[in-house]
């Protein structure tokens, strides 16, 4: 009995040691072995043909974009068909994308290859910090879109007001019509989380006076993070009118009871493209950029929007004709001040 017990004890000590070792090993392996996802790629040297070949070799490319979801998907599908390179699309608003980009830059290995968003101050800072790759795409050469050596205009989404025809039996002619008392509690407005939204509110105040934000707030509006959820809410009848949506052509075509109008001077969100240094697919990033800025790419990405190229079917304007945010005017202080004012008024 005693010897049995001792043997058992030894066995148990062994198994205890083994299990301790296993836990320690699992923890160490778990923590150490998973640092990297994919190694950073190298831009092919030689010429554009080499870049294209290397891009096809990379086989996949990741784009983070705050442009319209259907347009980005359409761009991705066209690119995939043409080059056989898979596009992973991450579509979100700037307020969500930029913190993620910041986090990825801290790791030194961004998952995003291409970034398209509308906060110029952010991309400008990335450019100054040296984290952007210089574009070599040929399609950028024949148009005037470079903002500095590293980032460029892509397109501008025209934003306007719209209404649900079941909920509101009339027509809105301009933003001031949103103050109609029948619409109290039934309009949707964007939350000014980033510079572009603040610029939009300041544009409204330019048009209709400094107290326009206050008047809008008095309408007791619902708050949406961006144009897409507001458009959904409009189609569903959750709100009767929206202050900040894309022209509702697709929704109307799909049978949703919606209609829209334009202010004389349209406001639009300018989108800036860039590529991140140290990403896994630098060649595919260049190729996607080239495609995005080509006539075919613009037809897809700038549908319903203002294009970087003239005479693109399906686009509504060119970049030189639309409102562009004045970054010298919309400073971080102006943004913070307006956000504070908005929070007081709308929350």
């Amino acid at each position: 009995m005693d010897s049995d017990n001792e043997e058992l004890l030894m066995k148990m000590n062994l198994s205890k040691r083994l299990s301790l070792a296993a836990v320690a090993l699992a923890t160490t392996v778990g923590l150490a072995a998973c640092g990297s996802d994919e190694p950073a790629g190298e831009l092919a040297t030689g010429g554009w043909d080499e870049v294209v070949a290397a891009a096809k070799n990379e086989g996949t490319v990741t784009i983070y974009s705050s442009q319209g979801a259907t347009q980005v998907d359409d761009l991705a599908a066209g690119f995939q068909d043409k080059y056989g390179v898979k596009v992973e699309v991450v579509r979100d608003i700037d307020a969500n994308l930029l913190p993620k980009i910041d986090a990825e830059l801290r790791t030194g290995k961004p998952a995003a290859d291409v970034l398209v968003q509308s906060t110029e101050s952010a991309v400008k800072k990335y450019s100054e910090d040296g984290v952007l790759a210089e574009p070599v795409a040929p399609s950028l050469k024949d148009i005037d879109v470079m903002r500095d050596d590293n980032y460029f205009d892509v397109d501008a989404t025209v934003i306007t007001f719209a209404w649900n025809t079941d909920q509101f039996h009339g027509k809105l002619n301009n933003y001031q019509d949103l103050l109609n008392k029948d619409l109290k509690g039934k309009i949707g407005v964007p939350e000014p989380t980033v510079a572009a939204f603040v610029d939009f509110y300041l544009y409204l105040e330019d048009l209709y006076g400094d107290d326009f934000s206050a008047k809008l707030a008095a309408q007791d509006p619902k708050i949406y993070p961006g144009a897409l959820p507001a458009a959904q809410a409009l189609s569903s009848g959750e709100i009767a009118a929206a202050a900040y949506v894309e022209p509702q052509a697709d929704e109307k075509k799909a049978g949703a009871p919606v209609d829209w109008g334009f202010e004389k001077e349209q406001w639009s969100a300018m989108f800036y493209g860039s590529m991140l240094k140290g990403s896994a697919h630098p060649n595919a990033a260049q190729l996607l950029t080239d495609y995005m800025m080509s006539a075919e790419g613009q037809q897809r990405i700038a549908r319903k929007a203002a294009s970087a190229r003239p005479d693109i079917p399906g686009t509504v304007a060119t970049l030189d004709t639309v409102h562009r945010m004045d970054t010298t005017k919309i400073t971080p202080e102006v943004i913070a001040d307006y956000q504070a004012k908005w929070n007081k008024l709308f929350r």
Partner: protein
Amino acid sequence: MTAATLERPPLSGDKGSAPRAQSMLWTDARRRFGVWVLLLIVAFLVGMPLIKLQGLAFEDGAAGYDRAFHTPELGTLILRTVYLAVGSMIVALVLGTLLAYAASRLPRRAGVLRAVPIIPIVLPAIAMVVGWAFLLSPGPGYLNAALRTLPWWDHLEEGPVDVYSLPWIIIVTGFGLTSFVYLFVSAGMASISADHLEAAHVAGSSGIGVFFKVILPLLRPSLIYGAGVGLLLGLGQFTAPLLLGTNQGIRVLTTQMYFSTSQVPVDYAAASALGSPLLLFGVLVVIAQKLGIGDQTRFVTHGGKGVVRKQRSSPWAATFIAIYGIVAVVLPMVGLLIVALSPYWNSTFAPSTFTLDNFKTALESSDIVEAIVTSLLASIAAVVIVLPIGYAISAIMLHRRGMRVARSLLDFLVALPLGVPAVIFGAGFLLTYSEKPFILYGTPWVIILVYATLMLPFATRMMTNGMLALGTSYQEASWVNGGGRLRTHLVIMLPLLRSSIGGAVALIFVLLTHEFSASMLVRSPTTQVMGTVVYDFWSNGAYPTVAAVSIVMTLVTAAGVLVAMGIGGRDVLSRL
């Protein structure tokens, strides 16, 4: 107090091992070493992210705190957070306790209903919240539209219910928390010996009398624990306020924190400062709860010997649970299903337009499929990591000899993930693991680690509950017969705790497959889980796709539960 008379004698040490004093000394030293190593691992997992966040909040002369104090309407924000926590806790405590009592009195034929109150845990919170929005949105909500056909509401253009208002955010949150309270109270109810209740019945006490005079007092530890958990979970609630509160600007501390990390420029320092009151309060509740329960062994009314006899059954018990099931589970699922089948969401219910296109869209999207896979793998990995840790911690906590400091520290650290909202942990993990030495951001590992950390209290608690219910007599018997500690655990405890472990695996797995709050922070846009994908579709895509993805997500989770039940036994959920 009745329970006091049932107190077990304290363990008197290893009686049979006296002759091997030296060997014991060695074993003891090794045990101490093991405990400290475990403590270090837990301290790093739990403590590091919080330290990192506080460090950030105190940087530049506590600039984070300064900015947090200047958050607009800070007072309202805090007040709303308290309303949400207390309100949803009360809803959950009342419903959870009544449901647990009803479940204990179900007729044998209706035994299957015992699982009904647990279903809201199985269903993804985000899917339920979206389901409620489809039903009770003031304009196009189906239930509202139906209510407006009633004669006294037929003049309304919208409403009568506004799911986007604070009271309804509280109610929806409360439904979600009810399952947790139910679980804890049921566990407590199961350790009440039927003999006591039978005695009370025989002595002429009515059902209500037994409930208030015998059951409630005996349930004190479960109720206090359930209320504490409900309150803490309520404080940390994120899903319903985020999805329902945003449109009307109803923010609570957690959503305000999230928005601080989801804006340009991003402000982690202010976010972590905003979380500090929750952290502090959480710690206080944990301490108060421990004082309230005191010696847990006092409440064991059986030693695991034999089968607990069932209570007298009552017909209203089945009715009550069935009604709860219809309101809390069936209704929101129906809302989801209608929207998922419709081309777009509006208040008219039109079966003629129903289509499966939305499901096709969902299942053809590689993002969604990848997110499902990531959710499942990360959940399994986290279970594998957290269960042995939870078991070891429980064994250490219940082994009431020496190492007071280590045990108190462990106890405190393990409770922290309950007290600290998942959003804070998410932010802390994001910061800790996107920098050297452990760059895990963008990989599933950061998700796995945060999942394992969040589940520490659940794993430990469920292991502890199982061990407590077993009592110490089996261990003592094993020791008296010369069995060592490890042998006792492997040969005696593990098999006896099989159902507790199966239950823990099931609960932790399903909780993790739809974890949302922490995932929102640690996910990278290319490494998503199911909940974050649903949220992205809610923010970016059409509502019908959100509904379809939510249903897919629910089915995947349900499948996971079935697998878990296959392993842990059919009634594994109801025996949690």
